């Protein structure tokens, strides 16, 4: 297991360095003066320009600049927002819980519905039910998030008025953030109705963000299940007269889930990409919306730092998934 971990890290470190080079080059490759872009100052005297240039280290050799940058990043210094003047990492930590909360709900939604749907489709292979599930999954997979989100808002919030339109909680509730997770904070606040409000605000964004992973998981589960169901040991189990529930639920599902776990892990990256659109539509104050807003504000420092942090998070999650996979399926360690 230790060697496996080392192997994974050996891939991860160069990848991170690669991403950091891209993030580092980002400002320097943009059209315009990088000093002006990073400082946010539009009108600068030559003296002021030289001063800021020196402060930012632009007068040093490019390799040294990169090493400075990397050293800063390793110490958690991802730069300072041009607009808010707050460290990028602080803003990230402030907003990240909102994205985690939404992503967790979406992945739970996708797993809870996706795995049973895939299993049913596999057992009833070729039936109308199978075709219905797989057809729906295909539609879900190809649904543009933006359109899907607006459609749900118009129908569910607008016409039926079942859920609120956007935001994390009704603006009537106002309490300090403790954990950053609205479901928890609303309970902690002790305000009546706060939790219901937070929950109802989560419903639509969860569905929108969870739709694509749901479709992917359902399809993956179905094909993994079909493969396992044709294995000899399943046939043996069936021949021994074990009830279908036991055969499918215990013998087949456990093995079928192994590739599904990887799929779920891979969905984390997809999820963060989806969060950018989902959060924007639902005014959900997480990192996805933060990135979009920063692009509109031309807050290059945030775009640069934010991208690197998000990339690092995705890499760490993938590492965790790999390790988890190695635990449940010892064969791949070799």
């Amino acid at each position, binding site marked *: 297991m230790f060697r496996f971990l080392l192997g994974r890290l050996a891939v991860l470190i160069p990848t991170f360095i690669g991403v950091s080079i891209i993030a580092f080059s980002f400002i320097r490759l943009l059209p315009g003066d990088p000093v002006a872009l990073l400082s946010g100052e*539009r009108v600068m005297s030559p003296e002021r320009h030289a001063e800021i240039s020196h402060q930012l280290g632009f007068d040093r050799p490019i390799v040294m600049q990169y090493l400075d940058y990397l050293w800063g990043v390793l110490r958690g210094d991802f730069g300072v927002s041009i607009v*808010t003047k707050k460290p990028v990492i602080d803003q990230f930590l402030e907003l990240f819980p909102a994205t985690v909360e939404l992503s967790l709900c979406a992945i739970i939604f996708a797993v809870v519905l996706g795995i049973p749907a895939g299993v049913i489709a596999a057992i009833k292979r070729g039936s109308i039910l199978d075709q219905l599930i797989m057809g729906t999954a295909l539609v879900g997979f190809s649904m543009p998030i933006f359109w899907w989100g607006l459609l749900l808002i*118009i129908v569910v*919030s607008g016409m039926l008025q079942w859920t609120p339109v*956007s935001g*994390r909680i009704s603006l009537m509730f106002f309490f300090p953030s403790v954990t950053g997770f609205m479901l928890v904070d609303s309970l902690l606040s002790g305000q009546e109705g706060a939790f219901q409000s937070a929950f109802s605000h989560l419903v639509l964004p969860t569905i929108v963000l969870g739709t694509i992973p749901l479709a992917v998981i359902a399809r993956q589960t179905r094909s993994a299940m079909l493969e396992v169901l044709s294995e000899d040991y399943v046939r043996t189990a069936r021949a021994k007269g074990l009830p279908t529930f036991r055969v499918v639920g215990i013998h087949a599902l456990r093995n079928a889930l192994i590739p599904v776990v990887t799929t779920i892990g891979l969905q984390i990256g997809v999820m963060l990409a989806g969060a950018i659109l989902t959060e*924007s539509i639902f005014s959900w*104050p997480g990192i996805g919306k933060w990135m979009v807003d920063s692009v509109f504000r031309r807050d290059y420092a945030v775009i640069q730092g934010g991208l690197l942090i998000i990339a690092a998070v995705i890499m760490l999650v993938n590492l965790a998934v790999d390790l988890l996979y190695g635990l449940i399926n010892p064969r791949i360690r070799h």
Partner: protein
Amino acid sequence: MKKLTTLFAATALATLMAGTAWSKTFVFCSEGSPEGFDPGLYTAGTTFDAAAHTVYSRLLEFKKGTTETEPGLAESWTISDDGLEYTFKLRPGVKFQTTEFFTPTRELNADDVIFSLERQWKSDNAWHGYVTGGSWEYFAGMGLPDLLESIEKVDDMTVKIKLKRKEAPFLANLAMPFASIMSKEYADKLQAEGKMNQLNQMPLGTGPFSFVGYQQDAVIRYKAHPDYWGGKQKIDDLVFAITTDAAVRFQKLQAGECHLMPYPNAADVGAMKADPNLKVMEQAGLNVAYLAYNTTQPPFDKVEVRKALNKAINKQAIVDAVFQGQAQPATNPIPPTMWSYNEQIEDDTYEPEVAKKLLEDAGVKDLSMKVWAMPVARPYMLNARRAAELMQADFAKIGVKVEIVSYEWAEYLEKSKAKDRDGAVILGWTGDNGDPDNFLDTLLGCDAVGGNNRAQWCNKEFDDLVTKAKETSDVAERTKLYGEAQAVFKREAPWATLDHSLSIVPMRKNVEGFVQSPLGDFAFDGVDIVE
């Protein structure tokens, strides 16, 4: 079961009663996050709505719904005979807001006014560069650094501002968001504590609402300022729910999650008007779109040719096709909501046959010309390409061939300034300070040739009228002069005036007292919710 029903009823009643005890909260679904809360540093309307029109007030204010100024923190003012000295008498007893982060100990005085203006003006002021990267764009843009001679404190309640030259629009400038009056006492405290940046994050002023808190990109909260000099507001709490997508804003408005929204999608306006729970206000925006001929190049140096082309353009068709009716054809170079708009002037009617004849009379045959179409959508012109195509068809009817050209936006703006430019340019303008000078002199004055004056049009008669108006402080006199200037403009036709887009504001039916501003900003003093 019966018990349960009773319990339900009791809970419902309790909730209802709790509801009536709640404070009156007005929710504005704003379109974006403010850049900061110091209105002097920024230029976006979003920022002004969130800072200048809530927390702050100014020496002069724009009278609600108009572009005229009225006394604000300055109760009255006198202007010296040579027009260079403005003496402002401050309103006595104006209280700053008391917030969780600052408790003021004194009322507004001359020091606050001087602080607010000088920090933007003097580069040796400690506050001049307090935000890295911040620049006083509007202050500089309105030419104030060159205009101001001095700002003096006569006594605690009197401020005298000296100018280097006569400039009538100066008063209107002081009603603009950048001229918001801050508390020097608060600023001094922040400076002493080394927390100067806080001025831009936790604003404090004399306006109708005091700042409570801002959650980045999500929500801004305000409370009514109980001691506001204009009287306490009817609503207790004001909330900006930042909702960047126009379709989502509309859904929130429909669901009653907000009371008013800015900038609807053109396609949604029909549904908004049909919804019995909503009402929709509309008026001409403070803008104009135009086609500027190059009046220095033949044959466009001839008035007859320009007039003929103007008569060949079907403006209504452009308005219908580009704005789906949410604009009105423009007659004058200033919009009808602006003071001094000349109602008497008649627009060039759409008469292709007459136009053709005019062109023949002028001896112009087989004319082919370029029409420049902007590559971006602006409020005054949503689709310049489409407008250019319609004009191309219109001009074809009178035998004029049109080639449509376009450039990248920055290049377009730059290239179109050239004095020897080839072709007529589609462009427009949105007013900054509600002063006619900001349109007529800025866009058509002789000084602006080679710059904002895309027609390269220097007409002595027009320029004299506009210059005289700029140097006069008497509003009636200025109105007369600008009225005459518009007549000269229409006679000489350096532009084809195209449209003024409509600004549309949908809100819940129970919102009362909201007045649409011709300047395009959103202010919520005087607003109430009736149940």
